[in-house]
């Protein structure tokens, strides 16, 4: 087991030499990324529009999982409240589009703003809101560790969930429809293939960004914070600032996924904010292999595939899915990617 495989994200080659051949992890990652693209294109070529939508859903959930992976897989923070950022991103898209489509101003001061249906603007707004929420929640939650951290992130998530339910202006419990999918310059986003391609490109950009972060000075400190905070202090780096920064970036990424998800369904509802979704994101990572760059894609892909396949056989598909999850936790702690690519992620 070479250390390059052991910590693929941290650029372990000490002499900075480029590896002669791509590692197995790289090949598995490429297969996953290109496999999703091929699946979406193939489904479109065969006229299976529903399958294109399913592939789009996988890509979006993988982006949300990638946000969680940054704090959980690299930073070791078990956030059980990432639905908060996902939902906030979704509501950002929904609310901006709602005002634009109804020609009602969102606010009139300091300037008149009637919302927008432009995806780039919506994405940026969603990421800023996700980042701000994560900064506030992270600043308070990071005072705790372990089970307390899990519980306090869950509590914040539930707070936002109940707020959304009880706020009638944007649909409350019924949710908020987006009548026409928001637009992206140069694309027909209502065309399933265009939207899938756009989402796939965003997923690759996000994963590329996380790979870059993981190899940077910041990423080295973040991964050290997961392993040994006392040691990080002893070399002169305060873990708090590193972890909070990761939490903020993570919140922004997951909020971006939420905005895309709202556009996929053309509908936002409080279920995007529910703890079930926080749990699903955790499940993606456990399935895929926590801390592996492509774990969220592998996990989300497997989850959606099983939901589709098992769901067709039995209404109780989640029982069988639970058995699979149990098997992964007991026998394949590295998840799908650990199984395929070899090497242990966590000692």
């Amino acid at each position, binding site marked *: 087991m*070479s*250390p390059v495989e*052991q*910590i693929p994200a*941290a*650029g*372990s*080659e*000490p*002499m*900075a030499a480029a590896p002669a051949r791509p590692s197995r992890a790289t090949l598995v990652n490429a297969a996953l990324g290109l496999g999703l693209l091929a699946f979406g294109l193939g489904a479109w070529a065969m006229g299976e529009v529903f399958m294109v939508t399913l592939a789009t859903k996988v890509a979006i959930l993988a982006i949300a999982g990638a946000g969680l992976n940054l704090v959980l897989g690299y930073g070791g923070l078990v956030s059980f409240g990432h639905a908060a950022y996902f939902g906030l991103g979704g509501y950002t898209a929904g609310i901006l589009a709602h005002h634009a489509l109804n020609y009602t101003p969102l606010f009139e001061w300091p300037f008149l703003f009637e919302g927008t249906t432009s995806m780039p603007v919506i994405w940026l707004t969603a990421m800023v809101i996700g980042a701000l929420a994560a900064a506030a929640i992270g600043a308070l939650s990071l005072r705790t560790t372990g089970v307390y951290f899990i519980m306090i992130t869950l509590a914040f998530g539930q707070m936002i969930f109940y707020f959304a339910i009880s706020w009638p202006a944007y649909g409350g419990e019924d949710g908020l429809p987006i009548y026409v999918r928001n637009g992206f310059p140069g694309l027909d986003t209502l065309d399933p293939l265009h939207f899938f391609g756009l989402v796939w490109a965003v997923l690759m950009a996000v994963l590329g960004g996380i790979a*870059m*972060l993981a*190899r*940077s*000075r*910041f*990423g*080295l*400190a973040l*991964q*050290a914070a997961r*392993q*040994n905070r*006392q*040691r*990080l*202090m*002893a*070399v*002169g*780096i*305060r873990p708090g*600032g*590193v972890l909070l*920064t990761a939490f903020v970036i993570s919140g922004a990424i997951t909020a971006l996924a939420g905005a895309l998800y709202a556009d996929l369904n053309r509908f936002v509802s409080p279920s995007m904010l529910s703890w079930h979704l926080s749990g699903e994101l955790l499940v993606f990572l456990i399935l895929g292999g926590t801390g592996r760059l492509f774990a969220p894609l592998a996990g989300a892909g497997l989850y959606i595939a099983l939901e589709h396949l098992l769901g067709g056989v039995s209404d109780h598909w989640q029982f069988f899915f639970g058995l699979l999850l149990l098997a992964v936790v007991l026998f394949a702690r590295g998840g799908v990617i650990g199984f395929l690519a070899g090497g242990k992620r*966590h*000692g």
Partner: protein
Amino acid sequence: MADPILEIRGLSKSFGALKATDDVTLDLRPGEIHALIGPNGAGKSTLIKQVTGEIAPDAGEVRLSGRSLAGIDAAGRARLGMARSFQVSSVAAEFTVMQNVVLAAQGASGVTFRFFRPVMRDEGLAGRARDCIAQAGLSGREAVPAAELAHGERRKLEIAMALALEPRVFLLDEPMAGMGSEGATALGDLLDRLRHRAPILLVEHDMDAVFRLSDRISVLVYGRVVATGTPDEIRGNAEVQRVYLGEEA
């Protein structure tokens, strides 16, 4: 006599009724190894933690090169050149030797919030890390994950990380614990060279090593310094004989 690099003055710390540190005053001069010995529970580790900033003293102060360290946390003190090793080896176990030492060099540089360039290809940090690894005697082991190192090698890794901090003082908490006599001798030789980089405050139970290496020894009993002197003075000190050496030897 040269000015001391590290001064500990009137340091006191109580946990409830227990006086873990009782008015301790000692210093560390350039080029010396100053050993801190005492029976288990004498408060050696508690004293070290107050010096490193991990726990705050109730009274007294710690000065580094004449500067008071009051109000500076452990990370801040590390950046000022206070390099420590832990009683139980404390490294990032999943990282390679190289990654661990680069992390320390990065800490010393004070620049962590850089998000784009790969840190392992930063020749400034990598070069210094390789240097420190060589000085600690770990050359050739750069790519090995810390978890796979032998116990003695992990001790050397901690020394390499301490070196990468551009230390002004070393605080070494039982660096020889759990090492065979051969390993302890080799590590002793390494410490003997390191003292010229920065003086060493050494907590150690291996009395052979302490008496062979130290310029001065302070004996801590129930949180109090009962004697400070050269190894010969300590050997001949009646009270030390009674409370410490006599009991254990």
